[in-house]
């Protein structure tokens, strides 16, 4: 398990809770789901993962998506368009 260097971007409620729109970090998380769980604990995200979405390098992916160093991970809280 090696740490990956990632850029994480937070939107809407997640940005409010994290106090930043974007951060660079290193993480041992292997998947988007593992990364979300770690950040949800750190920033007290109350939303179940199943209600949220994640994108890597501008593509929507699932929570089993493997992470690589250099990835830009976008964390989307529950959406409310319309």
């Amino acid at each position: 398990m090696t740490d990956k260097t990632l850029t994480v971007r937070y939107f809407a409620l997640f940005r409010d809770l994290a106090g930043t729109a974007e951060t660079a970090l290193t993480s041992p998380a292997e998947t988007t789901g593992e990364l979300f769980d770690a950040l949800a604990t750190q920033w007290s995200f109350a939303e179940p993962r199943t209600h949220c979405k994640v994108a890597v390098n501008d593509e929507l992916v699932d929570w089993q998506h493997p992470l690589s160093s250099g990835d830009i991970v976008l964390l989307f809280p529950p959406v409310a368009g319309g």
Partner: protein
Amino acid sequence: MSAVCIAATPIDGQALTQALRDPYCGGFVSFEGWVRNHNEGERVLRLEYEVYTPIAVSEGEKIIAEAKQRFAIDGARCVHREGMLALGDMAVWVGVTAAHRGPAFDACQYIIDNVKTRLPIWKKESYENGDSGWVNCEQPAAHGHAHG
């Protein structure tokens, strides 16, 4: 003209309708979503849409393509606002043309239903009591009201 657009300025539904006119099509169905003055018992004063445009557009175009595959329609477009909106402002417009009305109704509903659940768009409401909150998000008390 892209089938999906995120607009920072007011939506002109009449111009969008004209652009979809087609002598092949006998049916046109549109949906307009407007900012309303209440939500879950709270008096809403205004709201702000945040949009992540690159994925909102790409996912929106997927939805339009799906609608064209599922229903016998011809033209389809969707425009969604971003930024601060006042009560009564149009937040979203969907228009569909088809040879006949049935598929146009069905496709319009399909598009707006999926736009609401799949596009990375968030809505922050400001309330009469001074609070504000992100719609559809459970929020700590310090950050405003809970919305289930």
